[in-house]
């Protein structure tokens, strides 16, 4: 196996907009807001950056295709910019591009920007989109909640748990994230909710109620990366390094072969194994300090705890109800509020997760600050349970 990118790249500046229904803001405003915070954080000049990666999912409904929206918004000096898209893993995909460029020595300083302006679409929930000329002919007209709700039905059947017990653990997931989001001024939803509110919320797609679903919002997030030795020359002796970034897309097995049980995300398991190996993590349950995972729906987070190896198979429910992933638990999950409270402007989410881990590792998370976190894991799942792109990043603070 290749030696990987562990500790070859440092993050020296990050920015993240307030997420929410930013009715009066344009993509240009959001990108600028995230970038100005990041560049100030890094202590760099705009002209110091040599290459950019721009993550946008719904291109036609937002900023348009290609590199030039980002180049134009920031009036970049004609440096290379690559626009990337990989479903909900788009933000992490942008980061991967920038990190790989630096690790490869193609440039010294690069940046990744993710942005999405969902509230310009007129939809509550994610907008409809085509699946391609062939797949449109036979694929169900699913919605994301409907596609992820399937995990719950299959999980309950596989582990022989009642939907009532499963729903209670799912409700805890949402309750916990709102507890965290209430302490985050950049979150879209900053209100606490009760377990009863979650359990009694109107049904969206059985068994997911509306409070099992993450919000829909506008936002942008940005990361500036360089090599650790350059970080030090810039006076950033304490910085965050990238321990691993791994991507695992489905190859059709889950959708087309009976070996998949419908109750887990196969790609997350594959990406996790590779990411832990790249990061040198042998005991994730004890080494990972915090996670930001793709909690698009409560059931997703529950299943992911098992897929990431943080809970044993079938133990997700009890671990969640025991508070293992609460702010005060062994491995806090979504300490910033997660997709649940930030919403999911798709291109930005992976970088928003990275932003929180970055703050936590540097001890800059304010009243959400965890005690001495060492390794943080960010996880995206683009697509739906039976076909998706999983992206896992692991970050650590330099000594």
């Amino acid at each position: 196996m290749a030696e990987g990118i562990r500790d070859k790249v440092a993050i020296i500046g990050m920015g993240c907009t307030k997420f929410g229904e930013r009715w009066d803001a344009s993509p240009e405003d959001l990108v600028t807001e995230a970038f100005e915070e990041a560049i100030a954080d890094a202590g760099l000049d705009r002209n110091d950056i040599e290459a950019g990666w721009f993550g946008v999912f719904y291109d036609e409904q937002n900023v348009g295709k290609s590199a030039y929206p980002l180049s134009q918004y920031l009036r970049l000096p004609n440096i290379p910019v690559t626009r990337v898209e990989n479903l909900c893993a788009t933000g992490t995909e942008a980061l991967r591009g920038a990190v790989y460029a630096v690790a490869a020595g193609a440039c010294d300083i690069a940046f990744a920007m993710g942005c999405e302006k969902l509230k310009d679409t007129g939809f509550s929930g994610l907008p409809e989109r085509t699946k391609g000329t062939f797949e449109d002919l036979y694929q169900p007209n699913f919605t994301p909640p409907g596609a992820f709700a399937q995990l719950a039905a299959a999980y309950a059947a596989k582990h022989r748990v009642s939907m009532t017990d499963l729903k209670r653990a799912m409700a805890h997931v949402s309750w916990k994230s709102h507890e965290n989001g209430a302490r985050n001024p950049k979150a879209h939803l900053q209100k606490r909710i009760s377990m009863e509110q979650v359990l009694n919320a109107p049904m969206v797609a059985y068994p997911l109620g509306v409070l099992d679903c993450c919000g829909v919002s506008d936002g942008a997030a940005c990361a500036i990366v360089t090599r650790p030795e350059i970080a030090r020359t810039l006076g950033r002796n304490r910085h965050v390094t990238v321990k691993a970034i791994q991507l695992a897309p489905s190859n059709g097995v889950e959708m087309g072969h009976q070996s998949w049980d419908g109750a887990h995300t196969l790609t997350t398991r594959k990406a996790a194994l590779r990411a832990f190996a790249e990061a040198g993590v042998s005991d994730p349950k004890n080494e990972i300090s915090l996670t930001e995972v793709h909690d698009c729906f409560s059931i997703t987070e529950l299943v992911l705890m098992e897929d990431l190896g943080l809970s044993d198979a079938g133990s997700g429910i009890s671990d969640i109800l025991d508070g293992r992933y609460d702010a005060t638990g062994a491995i806090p999950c979504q300490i910033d509020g997660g997709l649940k409270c930030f919403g999911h402007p798709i291109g930005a989410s992976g970088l928003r997760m990275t932003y929180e881990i970055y703050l936590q590792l540097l001890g800059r998370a304010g009243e959400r600050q965890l005690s001495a976190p060492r390794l943080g894991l960010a996880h995206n799942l683009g697509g739906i349970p039976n076909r998706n792109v999983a992206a896992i990043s692991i970050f650590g603070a330099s000594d």
Partner: protein
Amino acid sequence: MAAYGIIGFGAYVPRKRMSRAAIFDAVGWAQGSLKSLAKGGRAFAEWDEDAITMGLEAARDALRGRAAGPAALCFASTTAPFLDRQNAGVIRAALDLPTQTHCFDFAGSQRAGLSAVIASSGDKNRDILVVAAEKRPVKSASALEMQAGDAGAAILLGRGAPIAEVIAAGSVSADLVDHYRTASSHTDYTLEERWFRDEGLSSFAALCAKPMLAEAAMSPEAIDHIVAPTINPALAKVVAEAVGARTEAIVDPLFQNCGHSGAAHPLLMLCAVLEKAEPGETILVTAFGQGCDAVLLRITAAIADARRESLSRQLAEGVEETNYARFLAAGDRIDIDWGIRAERDNRTAQTVAFNKSRDIYGFVGGFCAACDTPQFPKSRRCVNPDCGALDKQEDYRFADRIGRIKSFTEDWMAFTRSPPLVYGNISFEGGGNAFMEMCDFAPGDATIGAEVEMRFRIKDIDTLRGYHRYFWKAAPASGGRNG
């Protein structure tokens, strides 16, 4: 020469029955006279069913268990969804019959179904499947809304050991316009039935059937069953009397659980008779529409091997609907705000639809010859993670296979004209897995592991271009549908 006649038959009645009492509750204020019809339930097609899908299901019922398909396929309907696109060809594709199958459409009158049988009986050198179906357009508070029903029927004619021999056939044409529907009108314009009863029905039946019976040396009183598919079931008596048959021979008009299914109805009523007739019995089938068609049949001993209860089960297994607005929505007769998700552009790439015709219409996937794994869709490389063989896939049809629900949801956010949209991962017996929409599941009906069978339905409607496309959906497995 081998005997010629009916060698197979099949029927399809949608599971939903609109309570006629509930129709009256909704529209009786406007037409109080409808009260006399307000009993039983009329079958109605869901939003994703049309004459093609119902005809296809009847055709599957008729062909079930047969190794070879017919040489020809005729589709008869006055409500064929396409005016200029061969409807029979869609049914052929969904049956995955060879492209050499001679396909053609019949239309134009309520006789179209029986006319197709008569026309087809003229060529005794080949097997032909006559498929008739209607999704009847009706106006609110019309008598037809009460009397009509949606359904399909299929009659397979051919050589061998027919279950019913065609003894004689006759036809008369008379342009008596008691009702009509034009290319530009959506529903029937109907005159009072007394004129048709007195001047049309009686004389056409006599004019058509009597010479035919005489030629066949058949005494009218000896007819065991008379199929007289009149819109008003009470008028069947007029037909029997005009022909000289016993009124006891009049067969059930299927009013109680179905309603008059237009051009399909003579064949549907015939199917009901075939399910219970005994060897040696004779059946006179009539059909009316600007004249009359008639066919005389005699049941053979082969009926014993073809005994089945598909139609009677379907008729008995109806699910009552009492919500008139849902009935309207199923027929696209009410302008419901389905929300912004209904705006999705469902343009069909016809190049792809043609190239993938066997995948989409025939539900033909692949069977990897290297590892024996069935899969959908067929692909260049095998989906089995332990195989991955290139270009080893043989054709493998999923349409007639039983599946089980691996995962599902009831989605209240997704757009469908019958919320919630139910869909999930289906595992097929013998292998293969598909993520697909489901149909005929009410909220709370679906469970993990439940058996499903495949139904050919409308997948999406392209409102911008007046087109719709079909694919298969997973429906609750039903012994009734299997006959």
